[in-house]
């Protein structure tokens, strides 16, 4: 399955590796921040008892 990358294997594999790692970090950060802020917001809204209905998405 694995293609033969020849003498450039290191360059190609590290490129793909770094890319996937950076993208994964960015996505994880985005989701984590999103969850955290959403949770805090819901907490405050319920505390203030004024959230009219459920949140979208």
């Amino acid at each position, binding site marked *: 399955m694995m293609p033969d990358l020849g003498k450039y294997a290191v360059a190609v594999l590290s490129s793909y590796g770094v890319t996937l790692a950076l993208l994964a970090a960015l996505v994880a950060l985005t989701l984590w921040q999103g969850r955290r802020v959403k949770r805090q917001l819901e907490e405050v*809204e319920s505390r203030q008892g*004024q*959230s*009219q*209905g*459920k*949140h*979208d998405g």
Partner: protein
Amino acid sequence: MELVVNTLAVARGGLTVLEGVSFVLAPGAALILRGPNGVGKTTLLRTLAGLQPAVAGTVSVPPESLTYAAHADGLKAVLTVEENLQFWAAIHGVGGVTEAMAQMNLTDLRARRAANLSAGQKRRLGLARLLVTGRPVWVLDEPTVSLDVASVALFAGVVRAHLAGGGMALIATHIDLGLAEAAVLDLGPYKAKAPVAPGGFDEAFT
């Protein structure tokens, strides 16, 4: 030549703190703003001075007729009393430095560098600056902080003379200035009811 404030609302830190403030200041009149700490006096005065935008309402005043004096006096520590005043006089294109020093009892200190003044002396210098702007409307935020009793009386006299010359003054203060003739506006009733964040961030997203 009048300062007309009409249903003004002002915000600090993205929240409206005062709303519905209206008053008219005619030549020769002074208005004293009162209100507990944090009600929004400083915010209101900065808005009037044009340093920050109003949330709602209007301020109508001829351009370049206002001058503002706040806690920070705009003094340069390494310049002398006289040099400090001369600079502001030159910026506004008017003279009167010597008389201003005489009026605020600074003549003896004229060659002293501002860094070497006491808190009250600095304040007197900051107030003397008003006299060399040639502007008719004075907007003052707690002008008598650090002043002793004699200096407060001196300053009240200066304000009175300014009013007599057709000037106007808007003064936020917690202490009594001895300006009996001035009207008083208590800002307490104008406190914004439910402060609303701009941009619709306050309405619930259902």
